[in-house]
């Protein structure tokens, strides 16, 4: 029988099918953080049971952690309490714990791939919707709620109805200054935030084949923003090259054995998807969002769509523009901004910092802009320093903070003040997401860099030297 990549991985993890109910799916690796796990551990305590496979579980602190002075005790008592709870739970259940200051600490979806925890053909869950990131490696990876975190801690399984399948193909070549973030924002703008709800997506075509592993992570990360539980890309030479020799990847004989499995991980010719969508890479330009959900995105040179051109509720659309203090038909180019945030599980990796640095090199941060540059992990931070990016950033008036989720969800002190505009490389522009009353414009690291040095929404192509190959 012809099988999709998704079917192959799902079916090989099927423990049991419940009649007229969900599938029982075995989970290879479970990532845990401080915010969505304490109640799950409490549940285990109440049931008087232990974590079934601590060696398949990994814990890190990222969501509520400060991004300055991490060597000092965490000031906020509630955050400190959550961090303490995770540390104690990890110790009690013998789970590897990479807390603040640990060399492997960082955002959960950055450190998974970085340390070789994320492997092709595996099933990965975490109490965080951006777990879809790990699909870049050909894994089935998705976010879960706290009851499910408890479920996986207790049984290493999850009960899930099998989602429908969607294939998104993008062929052709990307234009100058169009990054993986733009590709994802483009897809979401076409599908809306609910267009892929109920589906698991596979991305295929030239654009994804040519994309780096980090770029693939950015795209898969944003799958949830169109409602999909997850997205995945078939593993290839780039994937194997990326994971080889990382700490938790199999070595020697085990590597050879794993490779024979991994090389079978592709969608068979003539497989049938429930839905197939095709776009052209050439049609995509650098993107920016103008509203209060990630589906409200547009090419940076365009105008904000009119409410009568929008499918669905005009009143919700108008409420959204009102929140942003934008008018229908406005150009986004030239709009003044106050903050720039480079970071998050979407765009907090070394390639993102390289792109940002490249553009701000030799320029100066605009005076009206506060910029928060937050690496996704200590390893990313180390690379920024080793590659000399930090010197360039410092000369251009930027400082680097310490790793964490930071202003993406503003659980720590990194909050955008009410009414202020932030060009953000993160994943959500919901009302108040980056702080009560904050206004978020989602964009790529290049668009963020262009805004950081000009103080307004600027097309990065205007600032980029065209390189002749």
């Amino acid at each position, binding site marked *: 029988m012809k099988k999709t990549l998704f079917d192959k991985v799902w079916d090989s993890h099927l423990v049991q099918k419940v009649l007229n109910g*969900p599938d*029982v799916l075995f989970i290879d690796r479970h990532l845990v953080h401080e915010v969505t796990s304490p109640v799950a551990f409490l549940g285990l305590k109440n049931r008087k049971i232990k974590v079934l496979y601590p060696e398949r579980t990994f814990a890190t602190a990222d969501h509520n952690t400060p991004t300055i002075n991490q060597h000092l005790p965490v000031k906020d008592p509630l955050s400190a309490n959550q961090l303490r709870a995770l540390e104690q739970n990890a110790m009690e259940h013998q789970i590897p714990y990479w807390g603040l200051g640990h060399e492997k600490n960082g955002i959960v979806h950055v450190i998974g791939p970085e340390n070789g925890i994320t492997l092709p053909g595996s099933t990965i869950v975490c109490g965080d919707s951006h777990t879809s990131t790990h699909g870049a490696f050909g894994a089935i990876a998705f976010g879960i709620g706290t*009851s499910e975190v408890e479920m996986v801690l207790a*049984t290493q399984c999850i009960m899930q109805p099998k989602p429908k399948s969607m294939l998104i193909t993008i062929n052709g070549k990307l234009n100058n200054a169009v990054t993986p973030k733009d590709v994802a924002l483009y897809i979401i703008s076409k599908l809306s935030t*609910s267009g892929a709800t109920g589906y698991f997506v596979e991305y295929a075509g030239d654009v994804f084949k040519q994309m780096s592993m980090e770029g693939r992570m950015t795209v898969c990360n944003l799958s949830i923003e169109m409602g999909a539980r997850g997205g995945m890309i078939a593993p290839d030479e780039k994937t194997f090259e990326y994971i080889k020799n990382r700490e938790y990847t199999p070595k020697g004989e085990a590597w050879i054995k794993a490779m024979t499995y991994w090389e079978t991980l592709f969608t068979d010719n003539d497989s049938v998807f429930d839905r197939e969508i095709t776009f052209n890479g050439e049609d995509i330009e650098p993107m920016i969002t103008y509203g209060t*959900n990630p589906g409200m995105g547009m090419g940076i040179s365009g105008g904000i769509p009119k409410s009568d051109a929008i499918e669905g509720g005009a009143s*919700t659309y108008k409420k959204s523009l009102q929140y942003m203090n934008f008018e229908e038909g406005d150009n986004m180019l030239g709009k003044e901004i106050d903050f720039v945030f480079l970071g998050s599980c979407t765009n907090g990796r070394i390639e993102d910092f390289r792109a940002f640095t490249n553009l701000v090199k030799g320029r100066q941060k605009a005076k009206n802009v506060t910029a928060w540059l937050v690496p996704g992990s200590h390893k990313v931070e180390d690379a920024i320093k080793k590659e000399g990016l930090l010197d360039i950033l410092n000369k251009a008036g930027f400082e680097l903070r310490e790793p964490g989720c930071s202003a993406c969800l503003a659980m720590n002190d990194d909050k955008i003040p009410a009414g202020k505009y932030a060009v953000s490389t993160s994943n959500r522009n919901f009302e*108040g997401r980056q702080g009560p009353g904050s206004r978020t414009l989602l964009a790529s690291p290049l668009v963020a860099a262009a805004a950081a040095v000009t103080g307004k929404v600027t097309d990065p192509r205007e600032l980029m030297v065209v390189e002749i190959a």
Partner: protein
Amino acid sequence: MAYDKFKVLSSTAVPLPIENVDTDQIIPARFLKATERKGFGDNLFRDWRYQSGNTPKEHFVLNNPIYSGKILVGGKNFGSGSSREHAAWAIYDYGFRCVVSSFFADIFRGNCMNIGVLPVQVSSNFLTKIFEAIEADPNTEFEVNLPEQTFTIKTTGEKESFEINDYKKENLLNGFDDIDYLLNIKSEIESFAKDTPL
């Protein structure tokens, strides 16, 4: 965690005719710092409900005393965004037992069912009728009947059936949870794990 059984619920409803209500609106991230499942209802729709101080925003539906009940009716694509189960906890803790919409985000829908809040998906036409019925009379009663899988506007008798799989239905009717089910097949899981290398 065991939860209340859900059979038949008759109640008035609170209308929230806004689309794409995301979980950051249902409960903002800064209120996710608890280590126990307590008190989340106080911060349900926090930033829609209160000014930056603690002054209630008068126009918001939860601050309007004419609306009450155990059913929350939301616009299309309810519960999108973050996987935080705290959103479902806040809805439960506030006193809702059923959320109605014409479309739900996946993770939110699952989270609700895992804690005993019933998500009822109706057609967009029927959703409009529900909003109209509440607008005409905020005291309109609705019946959510899980055994029959129907949602009824009691004043007019108009009803629509909704879908739920047999397994989840049994769970909700009896207050069973998935973890108890899985613990009962632990030996099967353990033998599966043996064949599945790290």
